[in-house]
């Protein structure tokens, strides 16, 4: 990219099943305050020299809060009072995508992305059901789990993926999460625990799935090259970014392949000048709500060929000490709320490049990948390449 955009600040709450003593605004502010303190930044209108955050981009699903115009009623908590704010529909990675575009356009120099969801306040499944086509799918009672189960079954059938191979992703995530202080569900489990857990929707079992409820927030501050150099000596540059949609109707695509992810990744790799992602990327934070998705998405991301996701995880390459560690944070399988999930992937990837990932740090990480998706069976995909 001719103009550069950097991530300069990161704040996350601890992710928990039930932040019942915190209002939505309190949860958002918990993450925002950390990002402000880390950067020493404030907002443009209250900064003495006028150097500060100019715009706030949020992600939030109206159904979760039971109000329209998401974030309007907590605008003062996100610092939007007297500034510009927009809510981006979809995963948090899309808000990051829009922030990058707005900075590249020259319209703004410093933008804060805020994602905030309290799944505990209502039924996530019921809201997922509303995402589906109203005429042909929603009446059938689908949610993300049951749609994903059709994809998992198809993927495992077409490429001979074994339940043990999917379970490895579930185990790895929960074990990695033990090194992440923000993680909701760090667990010392093994493959037998996963395969022995209750079947939710075949072939997906309880431990193949993300925790049913998660609350939390994540804030990321992005800045133009000029502004970034004033804010931090550890800017994390956005080197490539791409997104892509696929068909919504579940019968329209072969669910065993994730063509939209492959295209999103190609776009991001082209921009970042990456030709061999497995070699050139040092760490990846990918959005995995169900264990099979880690295997399938690694194929879409070109870390391995089609149908080779099982071999890749068997090889150990995606373990903490492997060639390309995937989800050192534990990822969504260890608990991240809807839409915050993608923002948290970007945050974790950036922490790795800043060398601030604590006990989950991958040594000498120079290039990182963050991935988010939205819609059933990964209908729409977003890939972000970061580098220092």
């Amino acid at each position, binding site marked *: 990219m001719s103009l550069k955009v950097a991530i300069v600040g990161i704040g996350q709450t601890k992710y928990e099943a039930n932040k*019942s003593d915190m209002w939505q605004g309190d949860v958002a502010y918990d993450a925002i305050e950390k990002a402000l303190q880390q950067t020493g930044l404030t907002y443009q209108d209250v900064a003495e020299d006028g150097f500060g955050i100019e715009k706030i981009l949020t992600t939030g699903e109206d159904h979760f809060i039971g109000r329209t115009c998401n974030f309007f009623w907590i605008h003062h908590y996100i610092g939007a009072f007297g500034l510009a704010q927009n809510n981006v529909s979809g995963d948090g990675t899309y808000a990051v995508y829009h922030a990058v575009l707005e900075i590249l356009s020259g319209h703004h120099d410093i933008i804060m992305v805020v994602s905030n969801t309290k799944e505990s306040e209502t039924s996530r499944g019921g809201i997922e059901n509303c995402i589906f086509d*109203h005429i042909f799918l929603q009446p059938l*009672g689908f949610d993300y789990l049951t749609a994903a189960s*059709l994809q998992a079954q*198809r993927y495992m059938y077409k490429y001979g993926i074994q339940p043990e191979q999917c379970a490895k992703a579930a185990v790895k995530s929960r074990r990695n999460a033990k090194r992440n202080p923000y993680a909701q569900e760090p667990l010392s489990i093994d493959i037998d625990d996963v395969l022995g857990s209750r079947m939710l*929707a075949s072939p997906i079992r309880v431990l193949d799935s993300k925790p049913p409820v998660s609350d939390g927030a994540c804030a990321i501050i992005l800045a133009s090259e000029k502004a970034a150099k004033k804010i931090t000596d550890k800017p994390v540059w956005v080197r490539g970014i791409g997104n892509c949609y696929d068909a919504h109707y579940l*019968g329209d695509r072969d669910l065993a392949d994730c063509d939209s992810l492959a295209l999103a990744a190609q776009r991001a790799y082209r921009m970042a000048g990456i030709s061999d992602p497995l070699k050139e990327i040092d760490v990846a934070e990918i959005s995995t709500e169900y264990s099979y998705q880690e295997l399938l998405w690694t194929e879409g991301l070109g870390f391995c060929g089609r149908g080779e996701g099982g071999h890749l995880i068997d090889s150990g390459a995606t373990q903490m000490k492997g060639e390309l560690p995937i989800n050192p944070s534990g990822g969504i399988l260890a608990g991240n709320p809807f839409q915050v999930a993608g923002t948290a992937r970007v945050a974790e990837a950036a922490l790795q490049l800043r060398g601030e990932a604590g006990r989950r740090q991958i040594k000498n990480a120079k290039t990182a990948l963050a991935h988010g998706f939205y819609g059933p069976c990964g209908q729409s995909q977003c890939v972000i390449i970061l580098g220092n």
Partner: protein
Amino acid sequence: MARKSKEEILIAERHFDSIFNYDAGTIRSKFLTELRDNQRIMGIRCPDCNRVYVPARSTCHKCFASLTDFVPVANTGTLTTYSIVNSPQPYSPAEPPFIYGIIQLDGADTGLVHLISGVDPQKVTIGMRVRAVFNEKRIGSIFDIKHFKPIGGER
């Protein structure tokens, strides 16, 4: 910080209950009325790529062509994937365990998503041949097809 508070926590509860009405539009209405009136499953052919989409819709997502060429497809087809659902939800269409499936109907190039029934869940396999079972009372809904069941009973 809220965390340190030992005070009693008050919780506000709110409820929402409303009926939405979604317009199916020209092409989808035709698909639904054909199910209702003729127990016929309508696909639609793309004039550019020749793909037959089921259910019928108004555009080809590959060519972005406008679709008007309705083609009836068979009530029989092949199961391309399925799932046995064990966890009940308020919006579930049936008592668990129930089975979702995607069926590639004979004459169609895409899959139809529906329920599979009339079979022991443990005996469902990808590649299984199934046939649509229509409801007695049909109202112009995707549930005018009750479910799909294996051809020739259980195998």
